């Protein structure tokens, strides 16, 4: 009775080969890219991560390799709608929008990378300090976090970009200073949990200083968390970078930042030049989505229990 019921529900999921042999009992995938193959979530995540990384690296490298010559103004080819020669069309000066977009995305990714790296470093330091340096410091830090969360991110970034007097540095610092609080909270919670672990209690009893314990015992444990936090921060960092350059703060209009390209496109929308806004925007959305997929999948690999 039992055996029969088991078969009737599960048989369609097994392939014929699966019933004997090495992978006996392992399900084949029913949908998606790996249909009909025997893979598990982990293996699929690895493949996805590799593909996404290759694509994103490709954009960055292409953006830095493509010479400015490709951006030369060709006035006889201006205002063209997307075609096979110009995938994203051309702008008012006859510049190829696809090249501009790739260059812009490359710049955005680099700025986002720097900003998110600054932010994760701040988060790690602050989180560790809060967890190990005593109650007063902990209170001060949680107040500081509240302070940073009390002003909308975009307003803080406008302020910082203004204070830095424009330029890439202002944007990087702006992203770095606005994104750390939530990750710092995670770091603090993790470090607090570690604090009562046996090996750390023993280490403290043996006379190691708090600084030693924080850097030698806790930090290595927090690295995976930090990496995940860093990657999950990335989409936000790029979106904020695009937003702040869109607002016109920071970079000069000659830089090919993605926000500047989109800001420029606003002026020509009423003339029906939709591709100036749509194509780079779609590319930006794709890149951001790829980064969030990357973060999600990496989390699946590093801490399978907690991923959704």
């Amino acid at each position, binding site marked *: 009775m039992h055996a029969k019921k088991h078969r009737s529900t599960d048989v369609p999921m097994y392939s014929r080969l699966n019933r004997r042999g090495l992978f006996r009992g392992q399900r084949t995938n029913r949908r998606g890219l790996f249909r009909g193959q025997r893979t598990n979530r982990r293996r699929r995540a690895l493949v996805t991560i590799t593909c996404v990384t290759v694509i994103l690296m490709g954009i960055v490298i292409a953006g830095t390799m493509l010479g400015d010559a490709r951006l030369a103004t060709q006035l006889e080819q201006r205002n063209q709608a997307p075609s096979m020669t110009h995938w994203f069309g051309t702008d008012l000066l006859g510049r190829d929008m696809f090249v501009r977009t790739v260059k812009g995305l490359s710049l955005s990714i680099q700025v986002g990378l720097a900003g998110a790296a600054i932010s994760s470093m701040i988060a790690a330091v602050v989180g560790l300090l809060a967890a190990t340096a005593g109650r007063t410091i902990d209170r001060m830090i949680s107040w500081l976090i509240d302070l940073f969360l009390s002003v909308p991110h975009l*307003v803080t970034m406008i*302020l910082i970009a*203004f*204070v830095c007097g424009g330029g890439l540095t202002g944007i990087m610092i702006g992203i770095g200073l606005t994104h750390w609080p939530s990750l710092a909270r995670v770091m603090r919670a993790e470090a607090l949990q570690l604090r009562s672990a046996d090996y750390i209690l023993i280490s403290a009893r043996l006379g190691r200083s708090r600084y030693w314990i924080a850097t030698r015992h806790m930090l290595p444990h927090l690295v995976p968390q930090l990496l995940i936090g860093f990657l999950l921060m990335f989409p936000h960092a790029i979106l904020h970078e695009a937003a702040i350059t*869109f607002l016109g703060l920071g970079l000069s209009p000659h830089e090919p930042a993605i926000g500047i390209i989109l800001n420029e496109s606003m002026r020509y929308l009423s003339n029906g030049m939709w591709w100036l*806004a749509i194509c780079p925007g779609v590319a930006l959305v794709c890149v951001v989505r790829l980064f969030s997929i990357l973060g999600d999948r990496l989390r699946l690999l590093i801490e399978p229990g907690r991923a959704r």
Partner: protein
Amino acid sequence: MVNMIWNMGSWLLMKLLRLILLLVALSIITFTLMNVSPIDPVQAYIGADAMRVGPEQRQAIAEYWGLDAPPLQQYLHWMSALVRGDLGTSMIYRAPVTDVIGERFVHSLALMSVSWIFTGLVGFFMGVIAAMYKGRLLDRLVTGYCYLIASTPTFWMGLLLLVVFAVWLGWLPFGLGVPAGVLAEDVTLADRIHHLLLPALTLSLIGIAPIALHTREKLLDVLSSEYVLYARAQGERGFTLWRRHGLRNILLPALTLQFTSFSELFGGAVLAEQVFSYPGLGQAAVESGLRGDVPLLMGIVLCSALFVFVGNMLADLLYRFIDPRMRKGGAGG
């Protein structure tokens, strides 16, 4: 009863103290930043006329705005004026900062409240639907939309809507808060609503995603609990199950998220206003940042902090009123 009022009073007092501390700290930080900045406010004020302004005039301008005094004195001066409710004079609008902020905040508030309510209702509904139909087509549509929107910049969504509704279909106006070329007295409420639609829609479409995802997650938690399993065993399902066991349990977190989302709402409004040239506070923030209007920028920073603080406080307050556990012991106070 007396105890409750006493609790309430002390809670409010604590909140007020925190707010004052926050604003003071924020004003010190922004003021220091402004002083460190390489941008010379006198230069920013003069702008394009730099060639025609001599050193004596510069001196006079600096004196007029009180920029020649040492920083600490400047701060104390500004602070004492702030306590009296005077935030200084905006350099680009040539009007008191409080007036500029007040007038623009009304516009922004209209925009934000419309999209706030819409976002809350629709987002909650979508989250509930997704959770009740978990794994089915509806769920996949909703979560797919949410993840896609989470990677979409607000301003690009605005551009997209602009292309579709203003350029291609021509249904809605291209931007601004009121029709161009119409006297202020002749602008009707319908005109204003007409101009409000696109920015509000932009903000709403973006804002729905986090609310729906959050609601879905909370409801899934509830649905996997044992009391729901028991209710299911008794034959309850569908809408009745949700109304009896789900609604109350997810309402509180949903409301909290709704009130603590003021910060993102403000950030989104900045972008939407910029795209649609909507004359709100966000646009003023961008203008002041671009053109170096220090008093206005500082005023806006403080104002936005106040706005976010009020949101968080309302969330706390709601918690106390809705959740009887918080009321009785006052444990959370």
